[in-house]
């Protein structure tokens, strides 16, 4: 008798918990989301339902860094400061995992729910970030659709075979993208071999000018200069770099398409693949 009563109570309790969970789950869809990182801004703008996303970061308005400046104008802009974000009364904050640490910590202390996203370092990680953003915003079907579209476009791009020239990415202060970076994957998907990886530079981020000259890659792809002069960027006008870039001096990395793990990297791959066609046609 006692056992049976206990059983009923247990069942009811379990049912109540399940009902409660389900109720929470549907109510759980965030309605006022604030994003404070360039890359979560873009994923959120791509996936959020109407009115769900309240604010994006100011970097999203910078055409050099952001692929979605037009869209970003429709949202309230934040500077990533804990104070202003708290006053927006968000029910969910999206952040990158290595920026504005102090702000994230403070928001958590104030009881705001913060979800952090890893910077995507590979094409598969872009897929998983899209799906995760779909989960968090309760827009799973939109996310799945976006991933399917991403996969299809990527597959079409990668069918294109041919010569694989050696390319070196060369940024301000002599930095490059070694293996294990998104830029390396973009390069490979566009049909290039990364000269830094081939030279066995490992995960070394900085490449010396002498090493670059001796590697003599088929193409050197530099970053686009920012306004105002700087010594760090002056290295791209060094006679050695100019000599190496003599053939295709305009091959550059467009930060806005390269920097974030979003479907916009496909645009980077497309334009890079075009550069490769020009290069392989030019060289006999």
């Amino acid at each position, binding site marked *: 008798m006692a056992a049976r009563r206990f059983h009923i109570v247990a069942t009811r309790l379990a049912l109540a918990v399940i009902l409660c969970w389900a109720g929470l789950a549907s109510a759980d869809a965030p309605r006022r989301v604030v994003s404070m990182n360039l890359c979560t801004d873009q994923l959120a703008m791509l996936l959020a339902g109407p009115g769900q996303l309240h604010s994006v970061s100011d970097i999203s308005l910078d055409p050099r860094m952001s692929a979605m400046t037009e869209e970003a104008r429709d949202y309230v802009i934040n500077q990533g400061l804990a104070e202003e974000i708290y006053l927006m009364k968000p029910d969910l904050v999206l952040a990158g995992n290595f920026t504005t640490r102090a702000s994230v910590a403070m928001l958590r202390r104030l009881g705001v729910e913060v979800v952090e996203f890893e910077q995507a370092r590979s094409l598969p990680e872009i897929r998983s970030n899209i799906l995760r953003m779909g989960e968090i915003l309760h827009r799973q079907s939109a996310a799945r659709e976006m991933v399917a579209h991403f996969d299809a476009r990527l597959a079409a791009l990668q069918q294109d075979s041919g010569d694989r020239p050696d390319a070196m990415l060369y940024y301000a202060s002599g930095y490059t993208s070694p293996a294990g970076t998104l830029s390396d994957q973009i390069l490979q998907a566009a049909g290039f071999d990364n000269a830094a990886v081939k030279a066995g530079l490992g995960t*070394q981020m*900085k490449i010396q000018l002498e090493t670059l*000259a*001796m590697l003599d890659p088929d193409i050197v792809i530099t970053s686009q200069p920012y306004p*105002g002069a700087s010594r760090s960027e002056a290295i791209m006008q060094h006679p050695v770099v100019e000599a190496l870039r003599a053939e295709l001096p305009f091959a550059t990395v467009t930060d806005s398409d390269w920097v974030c793990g979003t479907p916009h990297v496909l645009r980077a791959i497309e334009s890079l693949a075009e550069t490769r066609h020009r290069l392989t046609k030019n060289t006999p």
Partner: protein
Amino acid sequence: MTRLAIILCVLVVGLFFGSLLIGPAEIGITDSLSALFVDDGGAMTLVMREIRLPRALLALMIGASLGLAGAAMQGYLRNPLAEPGLIGVSGSAAFGAVLAIHTGVAASFALALPFSALAGALCGVFLIMALAGSRGTSLTLILAGIAVSALAAALTSLVLNLSPNPFAASEIVFWMMGSLADRSMTHVWLAAPFMAVGFALLGGLGRGLDALTLGEDSAQAMGIGLTRLRLMLVLGTACVVGAGTAVAGAIGFVGLVVPHLLRPLVGAHPSRLLWASALGGAAMVLTADIAVRVVLPSRDLKLGVLTALVGAPLFLHLILKLRRERI
């Protein structure tokens, strides 16, 4: 005397070739020298002529400049603590250079960058001379130097922080510490004319500085025009330090350490100390530049870090010595 000259020359030549032969590209000795003299149209000539040669030349020129300027200032002010880096002349030159680069003047005509650094250095020297005076004590000189250095550093940081370029702010350390990484022959040609003028001006100070060791009155009695002497010193220092700082940032302590080490070897004659310090300075900067490439090849360790590690203890030693002498 001549023995010291020969030793220093051999040292500088040896270090110069060492600088040409050391680098991450690991080219053999004969290969690299032949690539330097005969254009093979390939990567090796590019590395030798456009990376290593300018680097070695600049180390030589800037080292000689700093050594010479240090010896000349110490001779004129009769104070072993006078040094372009410590008293803020290099810092002011860096401010001039930064201002030229970030206002866009440097891009408008080729020599704007060294001219602007020269103007900065001139302001720095004038300020020091006005504040400390030629009869000033070590204390006033150092205090004036601290003030000028701090002001120049603050203004440099301000300009770099205001720049719309995101990389500018991270370059503060380059301007404060100096580096010869990734320079090209362009930089050599920018600095060379100014340094030639500066060397000529400072090199001609020898007789005047020797006479000055007997005191200003005796020097004047010997027919030394003190105003002209001071003008040559100020202009010469501004030329060499300005040109060097414009292309490689502010490298400190060279002008302090080198004259101090060589002074006993030249019998404390300021005129002999001038050329000895020029050679010694070249040797010190060449050594430091080789060291940064050997110790941390991929990190672009700043030259000023090494020179300060050597120079700062010596600076403290000098202060303690001066204090003992005073007592």
